[in-house]
């Protein structure tokens, strides 16, 4: 792992050191992450491999700024998120960093059933209060859905839905794409084509972190981070 004591933008899109995450469930304390170091360089394609319950999703949520670390140094796209002697960043700040820099893809796609493909892709623009005319259509063409723009999710196949979700994740031109089991709900053939799309996006300079338990997928990326029981094992 690249040495990076002084956190800076050059060091990467993700710079995490000694990340600890403890959940409370009633009186019980769950140590989901027990001191994890992760660094992802711009344009890197990384796979976070582990069994379910190993801490993959927790890791993605922390890196995606949807949750706060209990302890440790975290920097995302050169912005310091948490660390020693640092005040809690306000939630709207986290929202803003996420909106501008991070794209999310889920196993269940989570498209809005009432919106068409193109409207789903445009939706994040509502939150960023920007308008990018034509951008949503460009992205749908980019993911190979130019003929499906005005279809509702229910009229699309699983693979097509995930492509819409990818286009949605890209609308704000993120530097980092986080994907949680993105191919978990897809058959092998579709899985391969979605993965191929990831590969192309990566070659255009997008850093991608895919969390999966599928060891076969892990063979097709630049680097694999194995996680087991809240610790990085190689």
């Amino acid at each position, binding site marked *: 792992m690249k040495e990076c004591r002084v956190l800076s933008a050059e060091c990467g899109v993700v710079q995490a050191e000694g990340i600890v995450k403890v959940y409370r469930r009633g009186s019980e304390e769950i140590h989901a992450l027990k001191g994890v170091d992760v660094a992802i360089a711009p344009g890197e394609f990384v796979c976070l491999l582990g069994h379910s319950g190993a801490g993959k999703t927790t890791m993605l949520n922390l890196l995606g700024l949807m949750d706060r670390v209990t302890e440790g140094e975290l920097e995302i796209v050169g912005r310091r998120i948490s660390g020693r002697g640092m005040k809690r960043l306000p939630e709207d700040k986290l*929202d803003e960093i996420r909106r501008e820099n991070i794209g999310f893809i889920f196993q269940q796609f989570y498209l809005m059933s009432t919106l068409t493909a193109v409207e789903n892709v445009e939706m994040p623009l*509502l939150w960023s209060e920007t308008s990018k005319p034509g951008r949503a259509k460009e992205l749908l063409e980019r993911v190979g859905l130019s003929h499906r723009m005005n279809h509702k999710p229910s009229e699309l196949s699983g693979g097509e839905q995930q492509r819409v979700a990818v286009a949605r994740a890209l609308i704000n031109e993120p530097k980092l794409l986080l994907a949680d089991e993105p191919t978990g709900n897809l058959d092998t053939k579709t899985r391969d084509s979605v993965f191929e799309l990831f590969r192309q996006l990566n070659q255009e300079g997008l850093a991608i972190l895919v969390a999966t338990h599928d060891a076969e997928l892990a063979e097709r990326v630049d680097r694999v981070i194995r996680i087991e029981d809240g610790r990085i094992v190689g």
Partner: protein
Amino acid sequence: MIWLTLALKNIIRRPTRSALTVSGVAVAIAILFSLMAFQRGYESGLREDLNALGAHIMIVPKGCPYEASTIVLHGGKWPRYMEERYLQEVKDVPGIEQSAGIIMDAIVARTKTERNRIFLGVDEDFLKLRRNWRFEDGGWFERPDSIIIGSSVAESEELKVGDKYHVHEKRGNFTVDASFIVSGILEPTNTQDDGFYFMPTKTLQKEFNLQDKLVVILVKVKDVTKVDEVTSALREREASMNVFPLTELLNTMGRMIGNTKVFVMAIVLVAIAIGAVGVLNTILMTVFERTKEIGMMKAVGASRLDIFRLIWLETLVMCTVGGLLGVGLSVLTSRGVEAFIKGVLSGTGLISVPKGTLIAFSADVFIVSMALSIVLGLAAGAYPAWRASSIKPIEAIRAE
């Protein structure tokens, strides 16, 4: 895509539920609009009635002046009379332009199909007060047994100028038994005059056995700003009479209505509160159902405020649509509601019920109703919107 599109699509996703919620709001707003419009219509109707009366001051024998005013405005059996000579005393008071004495009697309906018949004995002085009178056919009394009838009387009794009209009623040891000839039919005035029978004062006094009696004297002053002075001068003349300016009558009736308004508003507020709880319940339910979706929205960049705004906007849209439908509903049902309220009010016998349209669409009542729908939406949507904004994306997405 804009916010409103997203909100509308979310609402349309659950058509039945949204429709029910919207109709709850619509009913509450319809009640509100109807009552406010009625209030407005009642006041202006009363004012029109008083204007049509053409007088500024009314003099009646002592008794409850409001009961008296009702009878004078709309007819009825009046148990107290004044002597006719008092009219001359009134005419002597300075500052009076015109005064007219009226004698009145009625034949009360005995069966449901029959109508109350109200007879007014009047003279030329009275005609001078009634500026709104136009004859559709015929004209003023030609003979002692002439009668003039209002437009609704002419219609319901199918009377024409020159027709004979007979009145017969046994009253203890006296029997009213007289024949008249229609000398004139009035054009519709949209006042109670439309339902009255008019005859010369002397004729009524004779035929109804009310010699030298009057029930009311109407007074028109020369200078409207001096109504109070003329009123006090009249009060000094004869203590056994009730002299009151009609503006005061209007104010008093307005106060009576104002008192009922408080009660009515309480009912309306309850209706609105129920509507609001319904909306709150529905929106809260959809928020719970949409936990995952809201989590996803946050993951793709929505802030707490964005989620709050979206849910609030959805509530607001439903309430605004409900408000518009409510006003529409109220306008559509206004004739029926009006007839009902009129029936109830005239049933009390105490409050005078103006003729004419009481519930009418008016811009300010519309604005108040819509403002209330919006306030209702903002209030009912705030808690569900806050709940939605507090959803933690990870928990939402993890909850399988």
